[in-house]
């Protein structure tokens, strides 16, 4: 078994059809195939091979327009994404924040858009894991019980102790650097690889941050600082967002799918766009209808279980478009929760210039390409923030230093200089700029959800999603607090803020969806009436359909979702295997 070149599947009926090949689908395929189950993976994009396709040592100059973002490659030519804010022929609808009119989601700047929501999709094997940020933070005990803690949002039907063993399993495959810090609600891992040394600007910022009561610790990133499970360590030279041909960071394509394929139990069918779930005569799911994108034909794949790992909103779309007679509002929607409680991590950022970093001696600051340090959020910090009316937290990361200059040098610092003076000034300032960025928690609200548009279909004939999205007061206050923290830290580090910190949270916060952390639309619950799935991702409506992606999240902690998605997917698949063996799937 292997990569299938045609839509003729080979081992039907499969034990499981896995829809999606990213973090969740990769784990599902890995866990199920390793356990001996025959698995068919459907991927809506093309096959993608990081070993052959990653531009590792290419300079920006080796890209058209020096790797600038364009409508066709919004995060730059080298970004490991096929797709992005727009996928040709596969639109989604959003609302114009000012007029309320529906419009197609377009390429947009997350800090300056009229769209109420932005939806990043990758149409390629490995999905968004090819370019993701690699931030790998465990959720803490309090993150599973937010309502019990402060009365806001909702509690998960599971606790940290339920998930911790699966974090352990995932971390032993993914490979994450970090350090044991024993910070409350920020669980450590027993499997951390050693963190890289901080860069000069990181040390300065960390010193400033500490003065202001924001201690920085080594970041926790899915990047190898030691050889790991036969994978090479980081070369400290290339950008993770391009992917990694030597498998030094985590991508589903390099870490999960190869060993899953090696079992001989996994078939992968690219260019297969899942449309809806099919049923046998007894109300059990028995497969998936998909579109073979190479021919445009509708096909069917048969399986004893269906694992939906298509990304939260795409999974919700498949379920909403599955409308057998007994589920006229969509499969999994008996409770009315399908598509609701949509969240995305909050975000904001601020830049500064630090005179102490001017005229630094020449040295390399590439490192692992992401931050080496970050600032977590602790319950102690929450106490301070709560007094300011900010109920939920965020982590801070940063960038800066002597990395390859992009197309946006901060030119106002060099005045009207040209000629040799300009060159001297450029050298003086190069490497003295920093940017601090935060990612925070959003509390789910009634106004944020996705639904099927009653009229529009994509080029494959599949009804499309439209998004309602609104940040709550808590998020706006949080974003303003982020800005205040950024400014404090930059100034305490001896730097000056470029521009002004934004005091209006509505202007400081990222557009919904733009952080690419969609969660909650198929949330899990302890009672069938409160959610879409049980705590193992099984639909309350149909237990042999399992949601393995971020849709099952009940809250959206600042920890960012990928690591937890993988842990929950592992737990869900292990449970599926367990109940299958016991014959409890009906």
């Amino acid at each position: 078994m292997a990569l299938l070149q045609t839509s003729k599947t080979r081992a039907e009926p499969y034990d499981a059809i896995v829809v999606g090949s990213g973090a969740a689908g990769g784990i599902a395929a890995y866990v199920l195939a390793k356990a001996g189950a025959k698995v068919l993976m459907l991927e809506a994009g093309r096959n993608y091979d990081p070993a052959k396709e990653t531009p590792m040592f290419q300079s920006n100059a080796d890209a058209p327009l020096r790797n600038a973002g364009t409508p066709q490659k919004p995060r730059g030519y080298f970004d490991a994404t096929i797709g992005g804010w727009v996928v040709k022929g596969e639109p989604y609808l959003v609302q114009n924040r000012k007029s309320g009119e529906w419009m197609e989601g377009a390429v947009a700047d997350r800090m300056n858009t009229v769209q109420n929501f932005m939806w990043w999709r990758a149409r390629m094997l490995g999905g968004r894991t090819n370019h993701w940020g690699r931030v790998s933070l465990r959720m803490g005990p309090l993150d599973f019980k937010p309502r019990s803690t402060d009365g806001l949002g909702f509690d998960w039907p599971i606790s940290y102790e339920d998930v911790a063993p699966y974090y352990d399993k995932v971390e032993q495959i993914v490979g994450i650097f970090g350090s044991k810090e024993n910070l409350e609600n920020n669980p450590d891992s027993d499997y951390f690889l050693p963190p890289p040394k901080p860069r000069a600007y990181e040390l300065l910022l960390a010193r400033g941050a500490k003065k202001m009561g924001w201690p920085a610790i080594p970041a926790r990133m899915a990047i190898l600082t030691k050889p790991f499970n036969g994978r090479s360590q980081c070369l400290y030279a290339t950008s993770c967002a391009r992917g990694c041909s030597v498998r030094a960071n985590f991508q589903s394509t390099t870490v999960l799918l190869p060993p899953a394929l090696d079992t001989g139990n996994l078939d992968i069918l690219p260019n297969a766009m899942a449309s809806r779930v099919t049923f046998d005569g007894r109300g059990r799911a028995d497969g998936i209808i998909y579109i073979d994108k190479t021919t445009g034909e509708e096909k069917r794949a048969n399986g004893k279980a269906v694992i939906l790992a298509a990304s939260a909103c795409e999974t919700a779309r498949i379920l909403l478009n599955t409308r057998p007679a007994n589920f006229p509002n969509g499969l999994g929607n008996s409770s009315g929760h399908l598509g609701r409680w949509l969240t995305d991590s909050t975000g904001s950022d601020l830049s500064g210039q630090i005179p102490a970093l001017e005229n630094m001696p020449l040295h390399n600051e590439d490192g692992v390409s992401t931050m080496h340090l970050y600032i977590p959020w602790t319950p102690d910090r929450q106490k301070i923030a709560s007094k300011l009316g900010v109920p939920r937290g965020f982590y801070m990361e940063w960038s800066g230093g002597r990395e390859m200059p992009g197309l946006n040098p901060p030119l106002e610092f060099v005045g009207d200089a040209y000629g040799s003076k300009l060159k001297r000034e450029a050298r003086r300032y190069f490497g003295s700029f920093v940017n601090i960025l935060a990612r925070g928690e959003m509390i789910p609200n009634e106004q944020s959800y996705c639904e099927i548009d009653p009229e529009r279909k994509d080029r494959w004939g599949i009804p499309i999603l439209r998004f309602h999205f609104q940040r709550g007061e808590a998020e706006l206050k949080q974003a303003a607090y982020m800005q205040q923290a950024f400014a404090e830290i930059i100034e305490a580090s001896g730097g000056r803020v470029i521009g002004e910190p934004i005091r209006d949270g509505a202007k400081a916060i990222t557009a919904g969806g733009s952080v690419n952390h969609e969660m909650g639309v198929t949330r899990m619950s302890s009672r069938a009436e409160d959610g879409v799935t049980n705590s193992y991702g099984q639909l309350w409506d149909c237990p042999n359909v399992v949601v393995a992606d971020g849709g099952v999240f009940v809250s959206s902690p600042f920890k960012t979702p990928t690591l937890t998605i993988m842990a929950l997917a592992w737990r869900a698949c292990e449970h599926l295997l367990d109940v299958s063996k016991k014959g409890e799937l009906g």
Partner: protein
Amino acid sequence: MIIIPLSRREALARMIAAAALAGSLDLEVFAAGEPQGFGDDPNLLEKEIPWPRALSEGERRTTTALADVILPADELGPAASTVGVTDFIDEWVSAPYPQQQREGKIIREGLAWIETAAMKHFGKSFAAADVTEQSKLLDEIIDRQSGARVMNFSDCFAIGLPALTLRRRKVGRRSVTLETFPWRSFPGPHRKRSVTLDWPDSPSF
């Protein structure tokens, strides 16, 4: 990644727009045809620029001369034009994407104005003027903005620095940056600084 309020494109556009406004112009319209671009799934290992270049020979000469006044050859490195800045500007203004089309129009208007101004002031093209004359023209334009910083030639640094760094192997690895140089481990900050930082194992730098 560094995010700053004024983008390179905005800065460049402002400069050229201001230059254009400083004189009278009779401009050709920049026609870009149907946007084709490199598509949403190009071969990332090959630099193929599918769009034809728009700048005329005359515009390229003006661009080259302008780039070399802004970033001349000196002890810090070569002149902008010798490391590909002219080609890069041509690639940029010719691209079929909305942003580049918008900026390309402004840039070409600016090039036309500079050429006209050179003819008026010196009776020869900007490229044929000597550095003193070229600088005089640039200074005059800066002065005419009354310090409002609408016109800022240093913004063109954005054109030059990337091109300089991109050829760093030719001008020496230590010229500007050490990027894409593989390491066995990350070495941390440079040690030749007197600031001591309170981080375990952190060197003075």
